[in-house]
């Protein structure tokens, strides 16, 4: 029997806009007193109307572009209708059949492409808290989070292992942070994950598919990996016991218990949910012009993959590149040195990989004179400039013809003096310092 897991991931990203998706309430809701950041719109009061946030929509498209999606020319908002205490209006304004972005992909390190079905815009719900008041089980509702912009990234079920899923999630996380649209802080719930898992089981005669399970309430990549692993095993066992295959009506929703490391059945809905989607009549549709798409594309920073690749091109090892790619100061330093290297004499060139490793290990101060700091950090021998000056002056005095060649423009001959000085000092001198002194003296 051959089993192949089929995993899809739904990721919700909370955008860090100033205001909410459809109203002017502050979007930054974490840790605020309950129900202090609401207005008629996000509280769902009679007569209130939504007006969409331009920046949120642009952020959604940026995420789409960074994930290699197509920005759809025509898009609109739709109402997704269901009743739940955290949903003030009794419907969520989301996107159904015409999302802002479609058909993208994420490249895993192995080269495998994970398809992205769509990236769309929606609004967050309020927050629920269960408790007991006067002996009765109740739920407390806080609508501060209601209406905060959410971008939903839906992958194709292209992942075949929990490791691939974890890698995919990490890449999404990196990209979202790199674009700057969200801190994607998992602990604050700014990035939420929902894997949907089933398993393809092939025996000698037939191919079977286990029923789909969607797992909610996962707030870390490790938990996602564990939940997926557990679920795969559980589904295979379940199938061996019952032989039940996937159907349109038997998709289940499960929760994840991080302590027991298990998934458990959460809602026993036999019927598929009927959200009665229809186009949001309070918000006119969108016709997205190419101009806007190109403008947004231009605003995208270089994405992690590309930056790392650029660093590797400079002969920097991947392990260092992966550490420093997000540090703008480090990148500036590297590129400045790389440029000066192209004009410098061979003996003057700075080893970029060495520089990167120093930065990665926080062993160098790159806020000022990078070259100087680098020399200090990499000195391997005597740097006593007075002593070495004496040595070199002697050699210069003894070799006027070489000096003459240098003065004629053959600056490469400086290496001769460095070599002689090294011999004189029995290899004890710091070559960099020698270099510096030789250059200074010759140019005097």
């Amino acid at each position, binding site marked *: 029997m051959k089993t192949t897991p089929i995993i899809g991931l739904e990721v919700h990203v909370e955008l860090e806009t100033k205001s909410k998706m459809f109203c002017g*309430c502050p979007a930054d809701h974490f840790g605020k007193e309950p129900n202090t950041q609401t207005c008629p719109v996000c509280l769902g009061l009679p007569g209130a109307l939504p007006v969409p946030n331009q920046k949120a929509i642009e952020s959604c498209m940026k995420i789409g572009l960074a994930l290699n999606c197509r920005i759809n020319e025509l898009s609109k908002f739709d109402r997704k209708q269901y009743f739940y205490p955290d949903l003030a209006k009794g419907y969520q304004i989301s996107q159904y059949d015409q999302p802002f972005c479609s058909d993208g992909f994420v490249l895993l390190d192995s080269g495998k492409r994970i398809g992205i079905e769509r990236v769309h815009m929606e609004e967050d719900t309020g927050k629920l808290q269960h408790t007991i008041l006067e002996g009765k089980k109740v739920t407390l509702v806080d609508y501060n989070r209601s209406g905060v912009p959410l971008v939903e990234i839906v992958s194709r079920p292209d992942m075949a292992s929990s490791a691939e899923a974890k890698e995919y999630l990490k890449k999404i996380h990196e990209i979202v942070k790199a674009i700057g649209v969200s801190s994607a802080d998992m602990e604050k719930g700014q990035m939420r994950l929902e894997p949907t898992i089933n398993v393809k089981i092939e025996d000698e005669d037939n191919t079977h598919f286990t029923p789909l399970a969607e797992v909610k309430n996962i707030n870390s990549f490790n938990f996602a990996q564990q939940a997926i692993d557990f679920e795969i095993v559980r589904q295979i066992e379940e199938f061996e016991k019952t032989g039940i295959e996937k159907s349109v009506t038997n998709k289940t929703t499960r929760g994840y218990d991080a302590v027991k490391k298990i998934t458990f059945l959460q809602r026993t809905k036999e019927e598929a949910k009927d959200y009665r989607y229809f186009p949001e009549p309070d918000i006119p549709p969108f016709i997205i012009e190419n101009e806007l798409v190109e403008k947004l594309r231009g605003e995208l920073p270089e994405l992690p993959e590309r930056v790392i690749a650029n660093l590797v091109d400079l002969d920097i090892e991947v392990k260092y590149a992966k550490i420093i790619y997000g540090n703008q100061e480090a990148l500036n330093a590297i590129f400045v040195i790389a440029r000066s290297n192209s004009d410098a004499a061979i003996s003057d060139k700075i080893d970029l990989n060495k520089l990167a490793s120093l930065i990665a290990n926080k062993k160098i101060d790159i806020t000022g004179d990078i070259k100087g700091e680098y020399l200090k950090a990499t000195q391997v021998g005597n740097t006593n400039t007075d002593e070495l000056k004496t040595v070199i002056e002697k050699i210069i005095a003894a070799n006027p013809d070489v000096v003459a060649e240098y003065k004629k423009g053959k600056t490469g001959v400086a290496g001769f003096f460095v070599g002689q000085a090294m011999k004189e000092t029995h290899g004890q001198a710091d070559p960099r310092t020698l270099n510096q002194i030789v250059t200074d003296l010759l140019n005097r």
Partner: protein
Amino acid sequence: MHTVTVTPDEVKKIGKLANLPLQENEVALFAGQFTQTIAVVNELNEIDTSNIPATYQVNGLTNVTREDKVDMSRILSQEVALREAKHTHNGFFVVNRTIDSDAEELL
């Protein structure tokens, strides 16, 4: 043209979807009335709309958005936000527990 009958069972299902409590007599009443109403609506099938797009926005507007900035003028104080609710507690709205799974009690 065939007639569509809306059955009491369908009415009950719709009642659940619409979160409306219905009495038995209402179910029967609505089933009959909806059948009548749908008959009128189905007359639309006499009109050929095979190549005609739907109009969702009758005044032709597109691309209406607002700037991303905080609007202090519309924010309700906690007091006003809670004022019209029947049950509140320490700044929260209160509803009777609807979720059946105990596992969601992550306290």
